[in-house]
């Protein structure tokens, strides 16, 4: 982690650095294109999306390239956040209280570090599904180079690709909902980068307390 000061003046806390926000949106924008163009190939009822995107032929050409961009972003995230996303023994207690979290009874939740176990699930869900989407996507990108006797690869890819995509869509719906509507202040943290001290303490108590201790010891 960079040594930027996390405790900002005016009672704000730096939640995501510029690099973190930039990589997040590299993944975000490429994912939205992949989602829209992918849905247009998924169902005839959604084929119109490809027309809005400039025609299905162009969407078919660009979808794999956006896939590569998305995977690069996921790899950068892994380098940036992989260590902080590791499972810790306290995660189980958090998952055991997930009902309180859903009902917004946050005072009954165990305190979370920089990323809570739900965010870790989101990260690893996108990471592993992203890897499978890349592998199956490479087969779907160049079906003409898969010889007939390796046809099972193509037949597997047409199942693996949509299944993994659907799993990420599930994560994506929850992620967008929580990041915009449910967690007030979260969207600002990934745009401007900062949150209020109250927000940091409320949602990521362990992380915030560590920031305070680090700040005190540096003085």
């Amino acid at each position, binding site marked *: 982690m960079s040594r930027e000061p996390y405790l900002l003046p005016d009672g704000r806390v730096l939640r995501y650095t510029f690099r973190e926000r930039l990589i997040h949106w590299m993944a975000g924008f490429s994912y939205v294109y992949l989602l829209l163009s992918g849905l247009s*190939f998924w169902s005839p009822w959604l084929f119109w999306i490809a027309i809005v995107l400039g025609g*299905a032929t162009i969407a*078919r050409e660009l979808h794999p390239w956006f896939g590569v961009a998305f995977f690069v972003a996921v790899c950068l995230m892994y380098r940036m956040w992989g260590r902080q996303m590791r499972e810790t023994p306290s995660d189980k207690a958090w998952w055991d209280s997930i009902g309180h979290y859903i009902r917004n009874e946050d005072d009954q939740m165990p305190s979370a570090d920089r990323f809570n176990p739900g965010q870790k699930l989101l990260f690893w869900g996108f990471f592993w599904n992203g890897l499978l989407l890349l592998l199956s996507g490479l087969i779907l990108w160049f079906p003409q180079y898969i010889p007939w006797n390796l046809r099972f690869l*193509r037949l597997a890819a047409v199942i693996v690709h949509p299944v993994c995509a659907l799993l990420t*869509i599930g994560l994506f719906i929850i992620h967008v909902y929580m990041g915009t509507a*449910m967690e*007030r202040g979260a969207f600002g943290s990934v745009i401007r980068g900062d949150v209020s*001290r*109250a927000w940091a303490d*409320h949602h990521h108590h362990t992380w915030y307390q560590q920031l305070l201790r680090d700040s005190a010891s540096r003085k």
Partner: protein
Amino acid sequence: MSQASTELIRISGHAGPVPGAGVNREFRVAKLVDTTTCIGCKACEVACLEWNGYPFSETSFDNSYQTMPETAWNYWNLIKFNEHEDPEHGLMLLMRKDQCMHCEEPGCLAACPADGAIVQYANGIVDFQEANCIGCGYCMTGCPFNIPKFSPKARKVFKCTLCNDRVSQGLEPACIKACPTGCLHFGTKSEMKELAETRAEQLRTESGFANAGVYDPPGVGGTHVIYVLHDASNPELYGGLPKDPHIPWTVQLWKKPLKWIGNIAMIGGVLGVFVHYLRFGPKVVKEDEPETKGERR
């Protein structure tokens, strides 16, 4: 098919019945390939290229009389050769004209996501409409016969049209016209099936091919190209003709149950978070919280 607009059903001011009304015309066509009378002259390959305007391709010369290993995007008709040592009939040089089978249940069409890129006509011809093709190659995955081929230049997929342009004008396909031995026939599906069965019976009773039979695989609902084989119990011998072709199960799973499960899950997910918001609302942080809960700086 082509006669559909000349067949009358009503006539104004006309006394008496409508001539030809109620006639049960068979529109479904079929190509019959009798592998037992094919001499491997490849006239059909040439006729196909000439009619469809593709250049001749160099042969690959891989210890076979075959022009190339498999059909290509601009080479839709290929005689497949196989030297087969038969315990009863000795060395047999098996030749089979390989091309699109024009399945009654086409796997290419089932797999295709592009509106109108693959159509099936009432006469049974399955045709690619390249203007609508997006070049995804799903048809290549859906086909059990390895027929659709991707053109790297056009970035679209091509295959045999069963000379739809000729058939719709009442002509037979170009390959049929070129065949010098009469091993290729074209007509209605029922006529061709009858002719094929007659020939197979002849092979069984008069030529000593006890396993002779007709290849019209039911796994894909029957095909509009049918074969007479000396040994119908072993179609793989004829350049890898699949014994029981069907639309691959992963393609069926993907296009039917998975599509519905996925659609319900996606709509359910969006509705789910919306209902959550109505029921529980946002997580609100009280701004004085750190003063009471956390340490003071």
